[in-house]
C-alpha cells in the first residue's frame, strides 16, 4: 500500500480529517525548507505538498508567485528538491510528500528521469497543475512504473462526466479547487463548495482533498464534513514571507497557524464516533 493510502486509512480509523500543508521548496532557502517541513509535521500536518518553483506560475496568486521568485533567485532546481526530500526522509519515513508544480521544469529533465529521481528520493506523488488528463497519459504511466501517484485537480466548473474521466487517471487522492480563482484568493463560497464536494464523492472512490482559499480553522472545520482532506497553502507561505530571516520565528508562526486548525479539525471526534 502506498504511503498516501496508508495515511488516509490510518486517519479514517481514528475518524480524523487529513491536513495537507503546502510550501514552496527553497523558500526562503532549501535548508530552511527542511526545518519548515519538520515543523509542519510537528504542528499536525499529515501530508506535505512541496511546490516546485516555476517562473510563470499562472494558476497561483501573488503570494505563491513571490515564493517562486524567492526560490528561483537562489536557482533552486528539481535536483535540489530531490535532495531536500531525501534528507527529510532520513528523519521522517511516514509523512507523504507530494510535489506540486508546472510541466515545463519536468519536461526539461525528461519524464523518465524526473520520475525515477523523484521516486528514489522518497517523493510519493506528483501534481502537475497545467497538465489536464488529456495530455497526461504518458507521464501518468511513467509515474505508475516508479510507484508515484498522480494527483489531479477538479474545479467548480468540472462536469460529472469529466470528473469520472479524471478519476481514471488519478491515484492517491483528488484535489478539489474550492473556488474559481488562483491560490490564496478570498471569495470562497462554502455552500457551493459543499454541494460540489458531495457530487464528487458520489462519483469517485478516491479520497477527496479541498484547497484554494482556506485560511482559518473554522472554514477548515466546516469543509471537513464533506471532504477527506483540507489543504492550507498561501496562509503558510505568507508566514514565511513575513519572516524570511529567522528560523525560530517561521517555526513559531507555523505552529501558531497550524495547531488551532489541527485542534479544530480534531474537535468533536469523540462525539461523532
Amino acid at each position, binding site marked *: 500500500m502506498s504511503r498516501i493510502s496508508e495515511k488516509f486509512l490510518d486517519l479514517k480509523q481514528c475518524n480524523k480529517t487529513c491536513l495537507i500543508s503546502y510550501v514552496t521548496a527553497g523558500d526562503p532557502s532549501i535548508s530552511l525548507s527542511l526545518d519548515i517541513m519538520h515543523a509542519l509535521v510537528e504542528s499536525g500536518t499529515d501530508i506535505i505538498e512541496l511546490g516546485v518553483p516555476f517562473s510563470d506560475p499562472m494558476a497561483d496568486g501573488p503570494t505563491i508567485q513571490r515564493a517562486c521568485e524567492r526560490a528561483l533567485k537562489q536557482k533552486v532546481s528539481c535536483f535540489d528538491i530531490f535532495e531536500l526530500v531525501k534528507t527529510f526522509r532520513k528523519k521522517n519515513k511516514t509523512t507523504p510528500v507530494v510535489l506540486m508544480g508546472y510541466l515545463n521544469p519536468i519536461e526539461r529533465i525528461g519524464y523518465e528521469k524526473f520520475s525515477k529521481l523523484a521516486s528514489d528520493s522518497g517523493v510519493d506523488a506528483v501534481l502537475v497543475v497545467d497538465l489536464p488528463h488529456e495530455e497526461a497519459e504518458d507521464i501518468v504511466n511513467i509515474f505508475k512504473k516508479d510507484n508515484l501517484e498522480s494527483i489531479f485537480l477538479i474545479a*467548480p466548473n*468540472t462536469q460529472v462526466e469529466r470528473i469520472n474521466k479524471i478519476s481514471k487517471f488519478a491515484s492517491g487522492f483528488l484535489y478539489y479547487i474550492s473556488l*474559481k480563482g488562483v491560490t490564496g484568493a478570498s471569495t470562497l463560497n462554502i455552500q457551493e463548495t459543499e454541494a460540489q464536494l458531495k457530487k464528487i464523492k458520489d462519483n469517485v472512490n478516491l479520497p477527496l482533498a479541498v484547497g484554494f482559499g482556506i485560511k482559518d480553522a473554522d472554514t477548515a472545520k466546516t469543509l471537513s464534513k464533506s471532504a477527506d482532506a483540507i489543504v492550507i497553502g498561501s496562509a503558510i507561505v505568507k508566514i514565511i514571507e513575513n519572516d524570511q530571516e529567522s528560523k525560530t520565528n517561521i517555526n513559531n508562526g507555523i505552529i501558531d497557524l497550524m495547531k488551532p486548525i489541527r485542534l479544530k479539525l480534531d474537535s468533536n471526534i469523540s462525539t461523532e464516533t
Partner: protein
Amino acid sequence: MKTTSKQNLNDFNQLRYGYPDENGHYGVFGGTFVAETLIQPLTDLKNTYYNLKNDSDFLGELYSEFENYVGRPTPLYFAKRLTDKLNGANIFLKREDLCHTGAHKINNTIGQAILAKKMGKTRIIAETGAGQHGVASATVAARLGMQCVVYMGEQDIYRQSQNVYRMKLLGAEVVPVTSGSRTLKDALNEALRDWVTNVDNTFYIIGTVAGPSPYPELVRDFQAIIGREVIAQMQDLDKKVDALVACVGGGSNAIGLFYPFINSDSKMYGIEAAGNGLETGKHSAPLNKGKIGVLHGNRTYLLEDENGQIIETHSISAGLDYPGVGPEHALLKDLGLVEYKSATDKEAIDAFHEMSKVEGIIPALETSHAIAYTMKLAKKMKKNQNIVINLSGRGDKDLNTVAKLEGIKI
C-alpha cells in the same frame, strides 16, 4: 478530419495540411496545458467557434465589420523606390498599417469580440506588449459596448505610454503588471488569472496565435484574411508571389499572411527579433535558439534556462519581446515549410529609417524586422521575382523609442 467546416473562414482547402488535429495539436506542438478551471471555458469557446465559423450570420457580421470598421481590404502597394534602390526583386507591401488602430491586430479582436457577444459575455480582458493588441481590444470593446480591462507589463507601459493613453481614452482600464520581467509574458499570466477568477462573465481576447487550444486556431483563422487578400490582389496584378516575409513574435501577422499560401510554392520567411545578436543571449528568437517546452497553455519552442525556467527576453520592439511563439510556427519550422530568420535591433532600426525616407511609410519596429530581412533577400533574388512583406503596423507608437536612441527628446 474536420476540414469541411473550415472552408468559409479558410477558403483554401488544406488537403495536405490538416492542422490542428481535433485536440488542438500541431504535430507535437499546441494542445491544452492549463489548470482544470480553464478547461470548461475553453471547451465552451471551442464549441461556440466551431458552430459559428460556417454560420452565414456570423460571417456576414464579421465581414461587414472588416469592411466598414477595420477598413478592409487593405491595399497591396508596390514599393517602387525601395525596389529600385535595392536593385533586386520587386517588393510589395501588404498595408495592414492602414487598418483601423494602425495594425493587423484588430482583424482578430473584432472576430473574438463578436464571439464574446454571441456567448453572452459582458467583459473583455486582454494582455498587451507593444500596446497594439490592447488598443485593438479596447477599440472593439467600445464598438460593442463591453467593459474592457487590459493587462500590461510595467516595463511596456513605460515604453509605450502613448498606447496606454489611447486605451484609457477608449474607456479601458489598464492594469500594470509588476511581477516577473514586467513584460508581455507576465501580462499574459495576469490575464489568465483574471479569467480563472471571472470566467462567468468574462471573455479573454488573446492577441496572438499562442495560448491553449482553440486560440491558436481561431486567431489564425481571423488573421488569414491578410493572405487571402494578397492572393486575390496579386492575381489582379497578374503577378506570381515568389516570397512572403513577416515578423514573428507570437506570430499572428505572419500566420495570417502565410496560412493561405501553405500549399503553394511561394517561399515563406518568418523573422524573429535577434535583439543584440543571436549569440549574445539577449534576443527574442525561440524558433532560432529555443527548446521545446510548455508555457501559457501550449507546447512550442521556448527560451528557457537549463532548469526549464523561462528567461527574460530582449528586443527593441515590445511586440516581439516574448519567450515563446505560436505552436503552428513551431510545426511549420519542423516541417520546413517556413524558414525562420532573424534581424537585430540595429538592422530593424536601419530598416525603420530606410522605409520612412524611401517610401514615406513609417513602419512599426516589429514590422521593421521583416523589412530588414527583405532588404537582404531582395538583392539575392531575380528582378522579375516578387516579394510581399506584411507591413503589419505603423510606427507612430515607436517614435519615443527611436528618438530616445538618437538622443532626441520629443
